[in-house]
């Protein structure tokens, strides 16, 4: 939400987003299939079931690390954003603590409360985006979207790859929360509908920014949505509405960090065979704060890490889920074959 999706290809961002959506469908179907094979079970329990104690613990440790690290990355994005645009004199630790307190509250509440929170903030985010879209209409220049495919195919493909890893395939974290899902509900529907809504929001934001800022400005700016909001000035009466965009960022960011926190707490609990994951939310959240404080030395380092992140995320977003899925399918087939042969012999 803060950094936005990859904007390196400027006016061709929408093509990159479209390609990323198409390519990410099979990836999300793999995640959904894992949920379908093991209904009411999260990735931590699945790993132990499939790979035994030692193999399972290794996968749990890797996935827990990814949850903590992603939580720290998102938290740092937010604290940097708040420091740059609103509170340049305020140190980052109090900002992070303020954000993390809300996420601890959400993580410690029942999952239904967190679900209700998500249901409440989604319309707020949608209404805000649509409102700003209406305000932006007067400053939109539709020639900004031309020339179509002004960037090379390789560049657009690289941009699509970046969009898949950040943010689409980050939905792998929901496998850590899969035990909360009702057994009768369809994970395919959840993932594909989520993808549709997410891509629609990202697409609208991306087009709005390209049309109002132009591709050169969009490529140069780090917080393009926020900067674009500053351009709105309706009859010298309605201006400085970038605050609305900040509210959007914070609401969505809190939700994402909470997902990371719940997943990481469940992972730590499973790793050490603890009964109650909610007990671990506070120390894990403080680990996230500590990690986010030492992640980067400067804001530029944070943006530079975005070039590394898509490759770094491949094992967590692709390799581990595919290994889990294939192992599960093989085990299911073996089981059904042995039960068939038992029936035939009897």
């Amino acid at each position, binding site marked *: 939400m803060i950094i936005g999706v990859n904007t390196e290809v400027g006016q061709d961002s929408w093509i990159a987003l479209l390609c990323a959506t198409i390519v990410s469908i099979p990836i999300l179907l793999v995640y959904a299939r894992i949920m379908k094979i093991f209904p009411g079970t999260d990735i931590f329990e699945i790993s132990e079931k499939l790979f035994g104690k030692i193999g399972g613990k290794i996968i749990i440790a890797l996935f827990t690390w990814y949850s903590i690290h992603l939580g720290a990355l998102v938290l740092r994005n937010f604290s940097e954003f708040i420091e740059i645009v609103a509170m340049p004199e305020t140190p980052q630790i109090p900002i992070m*603590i303020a954000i993390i307190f809300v996420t601890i509250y959400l993580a410690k509440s029942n999952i239904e409360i967190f679900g209700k929170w998500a249901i409440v903030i989604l319309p707020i985010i949608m209404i805000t985006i649509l409102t700003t879209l209406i305000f932006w209409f007067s400053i939109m220049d539709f020639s900004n979207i031309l020339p179509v495919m002004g960037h090379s195919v390789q560049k657009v493909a690289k941009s699509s790859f970046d969009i898949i890893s950040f943010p689409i395939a980050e939905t792998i974290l929901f496998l850590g929360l899969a035990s909360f899902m009702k057994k009768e509900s369809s994970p395919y529907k959840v993932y594909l509908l989520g993808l549709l809504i997410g891509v629609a929001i990202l697409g609208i934001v991306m087009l709005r920014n390209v049309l109002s800022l132009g591709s050169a400005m969009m490529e140069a700016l780090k917080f393009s949505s926020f900067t674009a909001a500053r351009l709105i000035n309706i009859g010298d009466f309605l201006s400085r509405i970038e605050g609305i965009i900040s509210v959007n960022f914070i609401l969505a960011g809190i939700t994402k960090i909470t997902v990371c926190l719940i997943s990481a707490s469940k992972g*730590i609990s499973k790793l050490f065979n603890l009964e109650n994951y909610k007990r671990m939310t506070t*120390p894990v959240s403080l680990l996230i704060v*500590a990690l986010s404080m*030492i992640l980067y030395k400067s804001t530029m380092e944070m943006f530079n*890490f975005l070039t*590394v992140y898509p*490759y*770094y995320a491949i094992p967590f977003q692709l390799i581990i889920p595919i290994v889990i899925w294939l192992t599960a399918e093989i085990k299911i087939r073996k089981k059904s074959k042995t039960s068939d042969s038992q029936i035939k012999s009897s």
Partner: protein
Amino acid sequence: LDAAIVIILYLCVVIAEFVPLIKEKNKKQTWVYAIALSISFCVLILVGIGFSIPGPSGLIKTVVEKALSFKL
């Protein structure tokens, strides 16, 4: 100021959560909780004082570049 905020925060956490956890006499949970709390406290207090602690981003970048065998 950062260090003071961190100390106050951890005092609150210890009083509100850690002491009741010790009273529950769940040894394993208490140990994991204490270790996680101590690690984060040490890091945050050092950062608060002004120490520069190396983060994992540099290491991750090096590993990724070695795996891909090109500079990012």
